[in-house]
């Protein structure tokens, strides 16, 4: 947490911190406090009439079944995306970690989707799975699969899960690979001499030793699915059908959109903010003393 060697003084460090603090205050704390203020107001779309309503927006929020639905959607969505993207990435990483010819090329080919914008990823996936345009959707239909993400909430959820997973695999892959490479070779060799066959070796040695990486990625992935998937959901389903793919963040946006329910949207932001601060504290502890051996 602290260096043993350091400088002292007050002006210089404050000057160094100034740009960051200024930007943080102006573009983070000020708007955040605005959001808190807004969450106590009832306003029309154009902001021409305002009423202070105390906690009514919050009360509405917790009465709104749609909010709980979004909560559940978020939970389902995050769980699946995390599990899928982590396990697939782990599989790929374990394979790419073998000393095989061309491993480097495979690595490069696997990491680049990291660079694809979520919104673009969403477009790619809708393009594949749109019931009328999509080549794969047609393929499914010709196989007799009743695929209809426009109407079937499960299909839609599956689609956004796949798109979000696709986008996240490369990031997880990268870290798993690094994690694997940081496991001392001699530990693996010791296990070989101890007679552990590859499968058992993986589950008893490699996987436990990866747990710091896995845990770190879990946290990062949760944040990813919470926030960064906005673009995917917006382009793929727009939260539909009948709210089946509306996540918490998406709901914040869509409720506030067009100024229709800014107060409610702000109240949701505040709730989310609290959740995120809790997660941040958790993350902080984790970074300070990671799950490590």
């Amino acid at each position, binding site marked *: 947490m602290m260096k043993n060697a350091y400088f002292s003084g007050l002006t210089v460090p404050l000057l160094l911190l100034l740009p960051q603090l200024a930007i943080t205050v102006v573009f983070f704390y000020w708007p955040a406090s605005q959001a808190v203020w807004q969450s106590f107001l*009832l*306003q*029309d*779309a*154009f*902001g*021409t*009439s305002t*009423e202070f309503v105390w906690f009514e927006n919050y009360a509405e929020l917790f009465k709104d079944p749609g909010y709980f639905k979004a909560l559940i959607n978020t939970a389902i969505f995050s769980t699946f995306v995390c599990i899928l993207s982590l396990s697939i990435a782990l599989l790929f990483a374990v394979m790419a970690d073998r000393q095989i010819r061309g491993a480097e090329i495979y690595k490069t080919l696997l990491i680049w989707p990291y660079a694809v914008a979520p919104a673009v990823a969403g477009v790619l996936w809708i393009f594949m799975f*749109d*019931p*009328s*345009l999509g080549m794969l959707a047609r393929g499914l*239909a010709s196989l007799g699969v009743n695929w*209809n993400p*426009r*109407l*079937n*909430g499960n299909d839609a959820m599956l689609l956004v899960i796949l798109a979000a997973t696709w986008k996240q695999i490369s990031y997880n892959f990268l870290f798993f690979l690094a994690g694997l490479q940081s496991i001392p070779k001699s530990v693996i060799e010791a296990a070989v001499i101890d007679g552990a066959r590859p499968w058992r070796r993986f589950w008893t040695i490699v996987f436990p030793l990866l747990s710091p990486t896995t845990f770190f990625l879990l946290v990062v992935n949760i944040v990813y699915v919470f926030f960064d998937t906005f673009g995917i959901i917006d382009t793929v389903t727009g939260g*539909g*059908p*009948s*709210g089946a793919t509306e996540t918490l963040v998406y709901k914040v946006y*869509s*409720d506030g*959109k*067009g*100024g*229709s*329910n800014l107060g409610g949207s702000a109240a949701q932001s505040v709730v989310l903010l609290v959740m995120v601060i809790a997660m941040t504290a958790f993350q902080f502890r984790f970074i300070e003393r990671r799950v490590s051996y």
Partner: protein
Amino acid sequence: QTEIQWWHALTGANNDVVVKLAEEFNASQKDYKVVPAYKGSYPDTLNAGIAAFRAGTAPHILQVFEVGTGTMMSAKGAVKPVHELMKEAGEPFDPKAYLPAITGYYSTSKGDMLSMPFNSSSMVMWYNKDAFKKAGLNADAPPKTWPEVFEAAKKLKAAGFDKCGFTNAWATWANIEQFGAWHNIPIATKANGLEGFDAVLNFNSPLFVKHLTNLVELQKDKTYDYSGRTNNGEGRFTSGECPIMLTSSGFFGNVRANAKFDWGNAPMPYYPEAAGAPQNSIIGGASLWVMGGKKAEEYKGVAKFFTFISHIDRQVKLHTESGYLPITKAAYEKVKASGFYKDKPYLETPILELTNKEPTENSRGLRFGSLVQIRDIWSEEIEAALNGQKTPKAALDAAVERGNQMLRQFERTASR
């Protein structure tokens, strides 16, 4: 030179039209310059306009689709009513010159025009003539009533269109809003909201339920197949997948460009048992709103621009090129007289629908605040019924109830 910002949501050929209009206007005089900016979909554009207004950077002209009307007109001070604008600018302006079926939607109950109609359309039934022939149907006599449509769809399905007998784009527009007007039954009290923000939704009435029940039933074997809330599914018609599709008359350009088969359109079907059906359809599309808080000089330019676009020749050209409806009576008459519709009857279908009968309380239009969001709720409920989560009745009840909640909240915030 005074710059006039114009945010719009038009794409494709219509986007060209916008750009050309602005260019022509700019070339026609030296004082004003209209700068059009495409802002994405209708909801995105409305959203951007609202956000910009709140931030004090609204454009002068904002194109808002018909469902945004309620939201816009509630905001006194946020918008500048067109009739006021024209009067203050001293521009010649006669509200009676415009087609009432169109302007009715954008006027107060007293008949004051609030926004300038721009691109208007209505919903028609597009059908694939080749498919009809293949299924042994008469391609020149498309079905008129819903039962006939269902029959035709079954035959089409049997003839190989097994993924989709008929469908529609714009789920709520087709199945609630147009459906109500066309059958002369109310969606809400207070003349569907035209007479006040305290309107109460009531479209969970038997005919709506019956229609939705039919769709749900037919969805099961894909005689009907849902195609989404917007017009994303329109490709299903042009590709030949769905031989019958209810969607906007503005679909015309797309069909003309992409359908590799013989096609036509017809008025929307109706249930014969409904008294007075078919009544008249309502419009879709968008109008141009003038945002509040601008300088008089700028308003003057906007008014000039409106005069410019209302000119008869320009209207004729707009109509024949874009497929959108003419907004002045004179323009309609002129096109009709030219015999244009003989070749292109599908362009007249929506006008005939709109003017089919004198509008009633139930068919003049509708005006709800937050209709954009309410439509999403309605869509959700329709989707819930179609995928079997709810019975049609329960779905419509929920749609009404949740919609009313939104209306009541809107009512509280709307400045009166």
